[in-house]
C-alpha cells in the first residue's frame, strides 16, 4: 500500500538518494530528512510562500509538491543559493535595508526576489510588489523588501557587461 518510494535527485548540487513515503511533501523532506531547515513551513496549504524553493530552476511551493515528484529533479534551497554566492548581493541589500525582522519569510522572499530579477532586469516597484504578492511577511510591511530588491536590480544593471 503506502510503501516508501525510492527517489534520486540533486539538492543544492549534491546527489541525494532517498526513500520517502508518498505523502511526504518536499518541504518536510528537505527539513526533516535532509535537515535543510532554511526552507520554512508557514501554512502548509500553499498560501504564505515561506516554503518557496527552486525545482529545475523554477520557484515552487515545496508544501504543494510531493517529494516523489522531485524524483530526478534539481532542487535548490536557501542554503544552496547562499553557499553558491548567487544571491550574495541581494542578501547584502536586505541586510543594509533591514528588509527582514524575524527572518521567517526571508528565505522564501529571497527565492521569489531572485526569480524576478533573473527574468526582469529593472522591474518597477509595482512589478516587484506583484511578484512577491504570494509571499507573506508579517514584520516589515514589505517596503524595505521592495527597496532592497529595487536596489539590487539597479546594482546588477550597473555591473552588467
Amino acid at each position: 500500500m503506502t510503501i516508501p518510494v525510492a527517489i534520486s535527485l540533486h539538492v543544492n548540487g549534491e546527489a541525494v538518494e532517498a526513500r520517502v513515503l508518498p505523502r511526504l511533501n518536499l518541504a518536510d523532506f528537505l527539513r526533516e530528512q535532509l535537515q535543510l531547515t532554511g526552507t520554512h513551513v508557514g501554512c502548509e496549504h500553499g498560501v504564505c510562500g515561506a516554503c518557496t524553493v527552486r525545482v529545475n530552476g523554477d520557484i515552487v511551493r515545496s508544501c504543494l509538491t510531493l517529494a516523489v515528484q522531485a524524483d530526478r529533479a534539481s532542487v535548490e534551497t536557501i542554503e544552496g543559493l547562499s553557499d553558491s554566492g548567487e544571491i550574495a548581493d541581494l542578501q547584502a541589500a536586505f541586510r543594509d535595508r533591514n528588509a527582514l525582522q524575524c527572518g521567517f519569510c526571508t528565505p522564501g522572499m529571497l527565492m521569489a526576489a531572485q526569480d524576478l530579477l533573473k527574468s526582469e532586469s529593472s522591474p518597477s516597484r509595482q512589478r516587484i510588489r506583484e511578484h512577491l504578492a504570494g509571499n507573506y511577511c508579517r514584520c516589515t510591511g514589505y517596503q524595505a523588501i521592495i527597496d532592497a530588491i529595487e536596489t539590487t536590480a539597479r546594482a546588477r544593471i550597473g555591473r552588467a557587461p
Partner: protein
Amino acid sequence: MKASAFSYARATSVGNALELLIAHGDKAKVLSGGQSLMPAMNLRLISPELIVDIGELAELQGISVSRDVVRIGALTRHVDLARSPEIATHAPLLAQAIGHVAHPAIRNRGTIGGSLAHADPASELPACMVALRAVIVVSGQHGERRIAAADFFTGIYQTALTAQELLVAVELPALPENSAHFFDEFARRHGDYAIVGLAAQAIVRGEVFLDFRPVLFAVGDRPVLAKAASRLVHRPVTPALLAEAAAALAAELEPDGDQQASVSMRRHLAKLLLVRCAAALLDRPDLAAGGAG
C-alpha cells in the same frame, strides 16, 4: 497539517493512467501540477487512496498550432501559457488571464488540465475556455471524447469528466479577423480567487460587436456565458442599451453569497464588469462613465 497516507503510482502512459483510474475508480486522484489537489490533501479535505501522477507523460505536453486550431496539452503549465508566443498570438485572452492566476510559484506548477478538471467556479481558465469556444479533449477506455467547454463544466468542482477519464488537451479554434478580447476580475488581493471575473472574446468592427462572448466567473456553479450580451451585437451600443444588457445580465445570474460578497454585490460587480468590458472592447470610455448604473 499532514496529508493522509496514500499509495502512489507514476503513470507511464495515458493508457497506463487510464488503467489505474479504471481499476481504482473514485478512490484514485490524478495528480497533475497539484496546486489545487495538494492543499486539499494537506488539509485532509480529501484523502484519496491512490495518487496517479501523470506529471511525466510527454504526450500531454506542448502547444501546437495547426491551420485552424491551437492544441494545448493538459500538462501545459500556467507559466508556459504566459510565455508562449503561440498563445500570445492565437489566444491572447489566455495570456492575459494567466496574470491573474495566483502567484508565480503556483503558476510554475499548476497546469491547464489540472485547472480545468478541478473546475473551481472562481478560477480563470474555465471561463476563458468558454469564451474561446474551446473543445476539451478527454481520453477514456473507449477512446477520446471531445466536449465543448460550454458543456464541460457542470457544477462546483464538477465536470463532464468521469473518474475513469483523463483530460488530455484543449483545442482552441483559430480566431477570426477583428478579434478582440477582454479580461478583468475583482479580487481582494493580487492573485486571490476572484469575487467576480469576466473573460470575453469578441469580434469588433468599428464600434459594433459582430460577436461578443463575455463569460462571467465566480457568479455561479460554473462559468456563465452572458446571454444578455446578444443584445449588444450587430447594433450601435448606447449607454441605455448597455444598461439594459447589464440589467438583463443581473437577472440571468444566480450567484451565491459568501464572506467576500453577497448575492447582490456579485450581481452588481458582474454588471460593472460587463459595462467596462463593452466600453473597453468598443474603445468607448463614455460607456463606462456611469458605472454599473
